[in-house]
């Protein structure tokens, strides 16, 4: 289980939004799963309920979480949307990687070769 960690220089609600997105991507939160109450989540994450409320608000605005009036909050079942977000994070990681490698002087072909080689090693 991914535990909640926060850094100091960004608003916590923004970090919560990210971490919940990651939990959705990793499968810790399943599509359609019921979300715990704001208070319980806040207690679990060790944050102010108002902060958690704000984060939920953002997630709802992004359609990642929806509220059914009487039954509560649920993770979206829109797997396409989830896939889009996964893609977004993946692209971000790849772009960061490419930047780093370029900084080390690697060319495109070298990068691809290196990635394949290391994956092969890891799988042994």
């Amino acid at each position, binding site marked *: 289980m991914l535990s909640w960690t*926060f*850094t*100091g*220089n*960004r*608003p*916590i*609600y923004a970090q919560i939004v990210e971490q919940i997105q990651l939990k959705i991507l990793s499968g810790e939160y399943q599509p359609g799963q019921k979300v715990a109450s704001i*208070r*319980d989540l*806040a*207690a679990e*994450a*060790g*944050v*102010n*309920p*108002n*902060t958690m409320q*704000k984060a939920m608000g953002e997630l709802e605005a992004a359609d990642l979480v929806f509220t059914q009036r009487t039954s509560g909050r649920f993770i979206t079942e829109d797997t396409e949307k989830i896939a889009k977000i996964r893609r977004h994070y993946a692209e971000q990681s790849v772009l960061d990687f490419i930047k780093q490698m370029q900084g080390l002087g690697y060319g495109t072909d070298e990068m691809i070769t290196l990635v394949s080689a290391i994956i092969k090693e890891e799988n042994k």
Partner: protein
Amino acid sequence: MSFILECRGLTKHYAGRPALNGIDLQLERGRIIGLLGPNGSGKTTLIKLANGLLTPTSGEILIAGSKPGIETKKTVAYLPEQTYLSDWMRVRDMLAYFADFYENFRVDKAQDMLRRLNIGEGDRLKTMSKGTKEKVQLILVMSREADLYLLDEPIGGVDPAARDYILETIISNYSENATVLISTHLITDVEKVLDEVIFINQGSIALQSTVDEIRENRGTSVDALFREVFRC
């Protein structure tokens, strides 16, 4: 009155020395607010004034629009640094005491929390460790359905697990109608729990802001800002 706590030109002198200097302050309901400052900055004085344990030298302090008195004491829950439990009582006597004097005391809630911490109702307060007594006191205070909770250094000198428990209790106790004012100089642990912070120094307010504002606009944590503002 929409503000749960309001100070207007609040000043307090003790034996000549000014502890609070013309404080103007407004706290809204439904917030968890940190009162942050070095030792001797006036945090405890402000809290005692809100409790009616001190009377202002000049200016005024209002709880939901009223001066501190019998009526406000019904809706203000106070956790001082000191342990104020009577030696001769057992835990259940203390529960009965609170239930007797405070209409808004929830015995079931307190019993729940005591059970979770393995504190028996028959335990004598006299034989308890300091840490356990502090937990009992916290439980008693948080089991009151108050409009304003004043916690003076609730996590100072407490082990990390207890600290987590205390903060968790504060969070799960949250109500939109009530405000919790936490006075502390240990900011890192508490920061995530706070909506707003007030920096107080040498009897004056240096800053009042939401935590988000500080992080978004200044790009630092409250802890880092505190160190900057109160650099020795």
